[in-house]
């Protein structure tokens, strides 16, 4: 069964992004889902599938009850947090391509800043993953930042990347965010001095390398391209949708494989995107590259074939990843600059770029590659014109 160009994103929706939403997570989910359905011109009663990825606390049946969705024939939840965003969309594509569901809504809605904190030390249960986490936590390796830092320190050693190279990613994201009214960094561009002086979180990662805990919700409506509500102007074709779990992929602690940088899992995923779509890296006009930590964008650019291994530090120089550059990335400001909705806001930005509706619109966009979280089992999409 081929899945390329079978399903479309018919509509997208989001709540405001904030540090304190003032409402429940389920309400955020319901607001985002109904906004996306309005955008698509599809009634909630027509929804027969929901997909999300773990760490979202909204149960599918509660969301069904909240928005008045129809009888659900498909509900699925992908593991590995931020690695799963595009994977949730892939689930939706598989379901509609197989005829198991007609209208599947992918959602993410969290009060990860106001109701609990994200990225701090975690205690586990004695599950297969919990004991691995504890094995590392014994030595004080307990946060997402510190786990990624060890991989990125080795990446610097092997590629010669310097803090100034990491800064290029961080500055580009904030420049894009500065003109995006939905972004935390709206009208707040940063300088190289701001970056170099921002406090160290887990060496070599600085505060301005980190995405920010956010409250907010995002939803994406997936259906068949021949659904009667699908309009040429509005809908965006899903040209490829893939997952990737390379051997030796731990949750941000890929320390026991040859290349400990967050690259193998992204390369495995990207290879499938190009195979499914018949496209190559050169055919992409925009990239949405997962930036839980800005420096992790560099190995992802290499894994997606936008540059050779070790060359991303040169690729991001001279504003190449900004408007007017060879491959603008994260034009909404990314998760460094807009908000950290675990990549779902990035998928929405990819939709806007294909539709021609971004605040940082790139000219003549035909195809956009989107990645989910790296360093964990991951996923990705290529979206393009219908």
């Amino acid at each position: 069964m081929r899945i390329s160009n079978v399903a479309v994103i018919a509509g997208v929706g989001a709540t405001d992004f904030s540090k304190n939403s003032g409402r429940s997570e389920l309400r955020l989910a319901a607001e985002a889902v109904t906004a996306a359905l309005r955008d698509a011109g599809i009634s909630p009663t027509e929804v027969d599938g929901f997909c999300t990825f773990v760490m979202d606390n909204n149960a599918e049946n509660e969301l069904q009850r909240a928005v008045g969705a129809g009888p659900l024939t498909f509900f699925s939840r992908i593991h590995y947090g931020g690695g799963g965003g595009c994977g949730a969309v892939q689930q939706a594509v598989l379901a509609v391509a197989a005829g198991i569901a007609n209208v599947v809504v992918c959602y993410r809605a969290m009060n990860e800043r106001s109701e609990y904190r994200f990225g701090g030390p975690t205690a586990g249960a004695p599950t297969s993953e919990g004991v691995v986490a504890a094995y590392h936590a014994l030595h004080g390796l307990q946060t997402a930042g510190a786990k990624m830092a060890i991989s990125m320190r080795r990446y610097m050693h092997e590629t010669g990347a310097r803090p100034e190279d990491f800064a290029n990613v961080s500055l580009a994201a904030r420049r894009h965010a500065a003109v995006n009214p939905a972004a935390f960094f709206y009208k707040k561009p940063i300088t190289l001095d701001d970056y170099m002086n921002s406090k160290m979180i887990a060496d070599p990662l600085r505060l301005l390398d980190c995405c920010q805990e956010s409250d907010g919700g995002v939803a994406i409506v997936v259906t068949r391209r021949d659904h009667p509500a699908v309009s040429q102007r509005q809908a965006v074709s899903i040209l490829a949708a893939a997952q990737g779990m390379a051997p030796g992929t731990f949750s941000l602690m890929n320390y026991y494989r040859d290349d400990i940088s967050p690259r193998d899992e992204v390369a495995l995923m990207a290879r499938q995107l190009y195979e499914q779509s018949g496209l190559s890296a050169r055919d992409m006009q925009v990239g949405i590259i997962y930036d839980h930590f800005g420096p992790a964008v560099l190995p992802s650019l290499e894994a997606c074939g936008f540059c050779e291994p070790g060359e991303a530090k040169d690729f991001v120089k001279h504003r190449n990843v900004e408007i007017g550059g060879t491959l603008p990335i994260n034009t909404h400001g990314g998760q460094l600059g807009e908000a950290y909705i675990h990549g779902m806001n990035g998928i929405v930005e990819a939709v806007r770029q294909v539709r021609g509706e971004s605040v940082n619109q790139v000219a003549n966009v035909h195809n956009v590659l989107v990645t989910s979280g790296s360093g964990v089992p991951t996923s990705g999409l290529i979206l393009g014109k219908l």
Partner: protein
Amino acid sequence: MNAIAKPRPPISNRDFDFFYRGLSERRLLVQKCWECGRLRNPPSPMCAACCSLAIEYVECKGEGTVYSYTVHHHPGLPGFSTPHSIVLVELDEGVRMIGAIAELGDPASVIGARVSIEWTRSHDVDSFRFVRNV
């Protein structure tokens, strides 16, 4: 310095219990496949090379070479004062292992530095940390 007093006891199960039992006896143990002889780390119930469930345990000397590192600054860590340095070490036996390190020393020469372990005990939790060889 930001100190948080109480460390958490390690969460373990039947795949990992040998490791913590080893620490309590001041032995740094890794698994070795009884069938094909491969060492593996972190612990796992089966040899990924030959699917054997037969395991023996090898005591490592605790000496190796730093492969990468971080210095954790924020947020505070249960059981550790910050900044807190952690190294990924290639043990001489051929497996990689994570551990805290007492003094990181010159940051420019951490990767590639030779290290050994010393035993620690804090709030009834037996563990080890690496120290740079002089």
